[in-house]
């Protein structure tokens, strides 16, 4: 996209220079305001009321003040430096935050469909509306994966569009379902309420959404639709796993053990999954690379090759995904260490989960070095991206299943 390409219409205006910049500043301000409320507000942060602290008058005041302050700063900043509103950061991040806002609105709409208060029981949670939204997400993600695969064989642009749009729809359904679940957790009993990132079932929904979102961000910029077949297949695998989890009764909302009642969890866990999701996308790119390599080796000039990004591009895409994931994962690990320092008395205990996070980190660190250093070429790096993701899967799933440690709340029982 170029700044001079004149696009008209409302949406175009919404995404141009000043407006994006102002909106971005307002979002940041609102988030800072909420964070400040959690830290310094009267009564400060309470695990079992946080959602309603945000949604109450108090939250409105803190968040609203933050948003206004953000706008103010943005205006002052752009007067002092007129080029500031063109900052790429705002243009890159504002759409994500817009999407988040849309999820909040969707979740509020879903909340209207909730069963009556006397129909809600902790013992039987099957009638909660989030379950239905999650089921819709499952279906649509699988549909999207099928469409992406169909697109490989029949590269019609409308099939591609359907695939992309259904992936978007899945993200919005999943994200809003999680927000709705947060609200639902308070319906049983105010004391039980907590953010929906506390058990394997919930974080897998998060993982599906983040993976799809990271992928779509890349697709949008680099026209890498053929890669979608691989990434969305991984997402579908996660969807099936989640369906299985629910079927064995792991999908219920449960109260939070004392160690998890901390605002750190709300930052640490999602940040971790930005890392995991990006690594999944890198794995998808690696698989696409190996697939194309195979096709080329067979000497094919099939239709499929035409829609595939080139080997070099796929290599770059895998790198790009790791470049998103690696800093996020680093930050997540550091946040985890900070939390451990506050909850357990030490930032690092060589607990299996921590150690595996370190292993994942070192594997991708080595991947990044291998890219720069000589001797490592496309195919080997593609394999590395795939293998790295297997290690990642073990880190967030295998450790919970096979190894014991302080992180055992995520256990399968």
């Amino acid at each position, binding site marked *: 996209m170029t700044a001079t390409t004149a696009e008209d219409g409302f949406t175009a205006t919404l995404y141009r220079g000043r407006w994006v910049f102002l909106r971005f500043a307002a979002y940041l301000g609102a988030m800072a305001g909420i964070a400040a409320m959690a830290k310094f507000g009267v009564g400060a942060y309470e695990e079992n009321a946080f959602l309603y602290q945000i949604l109450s008058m108090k939250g409105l005041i803190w968040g609203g003040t933050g948003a206004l302050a953000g706008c103010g700063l943005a205006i002052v900043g752009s007067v002092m430096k007129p080029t500031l509103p063109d900052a790429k950061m705002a243009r890159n991040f504002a759409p994500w935050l817009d999407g988040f806002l849309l999820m909040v609105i969707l979740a509020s709409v879903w909340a209207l469909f909730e069963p009556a208060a006397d129909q809600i029981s902790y013992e039987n949670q099957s009638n909660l509306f989030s379950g239905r939204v999650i089921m819709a997400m499952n279906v649509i993600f699988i549909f999207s994966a099928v469409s992406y695969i169909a697109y490989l064989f029949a590269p019609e642009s409308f099939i591609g569009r359907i695939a992309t749009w259904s992936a978007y729809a899945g993200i919005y359904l999943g994200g809003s379902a999680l927000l709705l679940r947060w609200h639902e957790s308070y319906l049983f009993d105010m004391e039980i309420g907590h953010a929906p990132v506390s058990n394997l079932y919930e974080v897998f929904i998060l993982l599906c959404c983040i993976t799809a979102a990271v992928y779509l961000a890349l697709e949008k910029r680099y026209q890498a639709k053929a890669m979608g077949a691989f990434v969305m297949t991984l997402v579908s695998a996660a969807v099936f796993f989640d369906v299985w989890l629910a079927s064995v009764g792991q999908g219920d909302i449960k109260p939070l053990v004392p160690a998890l009642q901390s605002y750190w969890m709300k930052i640490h866990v999602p940040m971790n999954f930005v890392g995991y999701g990006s690594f999944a996308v890198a794995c998808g790119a690696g698989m696409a690379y190996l697939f194309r390599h195979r096709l080329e080796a067979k000497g094919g000039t099939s239709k499929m090759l035409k829609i595939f990004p080139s080997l070099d591009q796929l290599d770059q895409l895998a790198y790009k995904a790791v470049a998103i994931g690696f800093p996020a994962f680093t930050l997540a690990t550091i946040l985890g260490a900070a939390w451990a320092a506050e909850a357990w008395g030490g*930032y690092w205990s060589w607990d299996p989960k921590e150690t595996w996070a370190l292993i994942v980190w070192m594997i991708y660190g080595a991947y990044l070095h291998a890219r720069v250093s000589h001797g490592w070429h496309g195919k080997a790096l593609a394999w590395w991206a795939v293998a790295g993701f297997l290690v990642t899967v073990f880190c967030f799933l295998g450790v919970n299943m096979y190894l014991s440690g302080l992180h055992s709340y995520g256990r399968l029982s």
Partner: protein
Amino acid sequence: MPRMQTFPDLLKTLWQRVGSMSLAIILLVVLSIASVIGTVLLQNQAQADYLQQFGPLWYWVFRSLGLFDMYHTWWFISMLGFLMVSLTSCLWRNIPKMLKEMRTRKVPVSDKALKRFQHLHEWHLPAGVGVEALQEAFRQRLDGWEFKASEQGGNHYLRADKGRWNKWGYILVHAAILVILVGGWIGSEYGFRGNMAVPEGASENEIDFLQGTETGHLTMPFYVRCNSFTIDFFPTGAPKEFRSNLTIIDHGKEVLTSDIIVNEPLYYKGVRIYQASFGDGGSDVTLKLYHLDGTGAITTAKTQVYETWTDKKSGVSLTLTDFKPYNVENMADPGQPKDFKDLGPAVIYEMRGPGMNPVKIKAFMNPFIGPDGDNRGSFLMVSSTGDKADYKALSLGIDLTNPNEWRLFHAFMKHLGEAHKRTQDSARAAFQAAMYDVFGRDKAKWPKNFQAMAMRTLQAVRVLPSLQWPMLPMLVDYKQHYYTGLQLAQDPGMNIVWLGSAMLVFGLCIMFYMPHRKLWLVIRPAQGRMHISLAGMVNRNHLVFTKYFHDVFTKLDQDFGEIKS
């Protein structure tokens, strides 16, 4: 043939090798693989468990390699040390080069170098087009870039840089790892971390910690007194909050009293005090001993958790191991919706005695109340192996909290023994006689629920005589005391670690998201025309740059077109 090398040369080569990227890759992979071992092999368990698990040979091998406390072995630490050396070496060699490169920006490029650029576009414009106008268009199109111009041999060079400080990212990231490792080393060398269990009402100033495979002790410069410990529960019965009220006593003076909960530690004199665990701190319990010798005798025993109480007459000893005021269990059948119920207080003890196998018993204070509110009598959980998984529920039939039922049971046994033949009728008669004994002849004064009592007594007749124990110790009263499990830690290296962490994240962001992009506009007048080249180069993220370069080219193409006409 390798050349002969002098010793300093050899050192220099070695130093370079140590700081090479291939070595970094190898080191990272080897460290990863080594780390796996410690997560698969449970660390710092009791040596006896290891011996049992692996057998003498492998136990000895693993132990010699230090695998039971792997992350503190000399070889693991050495690998981290080697990583530090390697990092130092690569920083040492690269920093001066990078700083120089960042400072000096060479503007002119030779024709030959120009051809080798990753991205290159050319225009040929008629002579007479103003160089300034072209350069101005270039400057206008590159917002936020740094420019440097120069003229050489009639050629005009204009260089633009963005993300010129990108190499700082590299420096920060690699230095950060060094800083973190140094912080960690300081913490492990000059800090401590250990546990302390303080019963309610008591004070303590010593912490225990694991030192390799042994337990070490350390005395704090102050005492911690636990005034109280409380647990809050969710409606589901799961614990919600553990809270200790602590007082710090420094040199005999109470200096600080505060509550701590998980995630909210207390800070005193550089030491952080965390809520880590809890347990029974020696609760007072009263047991009633129902003797099973047929005499119907009941004696009482007052004792404490963690004590062993011995009955002098029979030689039976009870070792109390735990007391729990709440025992929330899922009472639903498998597959049914969960149904949590609190079964009330229970005490756990091991009973030993002459002529009996030792057993571990969890004795509940209250009788079991069924789903319809029906009293199903007192009950125990019994484990003959002492293993928690082997607990089996044992329903005693009668409700021992009601003394009449114990008497009724004995009266019934007596009358049943007197009967000549065991028939339905004789049993009924015996029960009636027993009821007369216990409640009198006036049936109006019998308890209303005596039918249920009869059922329970029948069950007791089936169960109690088959027990091999001399007595049934049941919990009747308690005064609970908790201990609070605290963790105390001091880590002087922690802030250094946070500093390193900040550098790491900051550096990564610079490294990945602010690539160093360079563009040149080279204008060469030749043969009555102007050769204009746009050349570009980036050190990472080529995908984006390719697009960007193309973009700039298109825009400049427009601009130059306008300038020309």
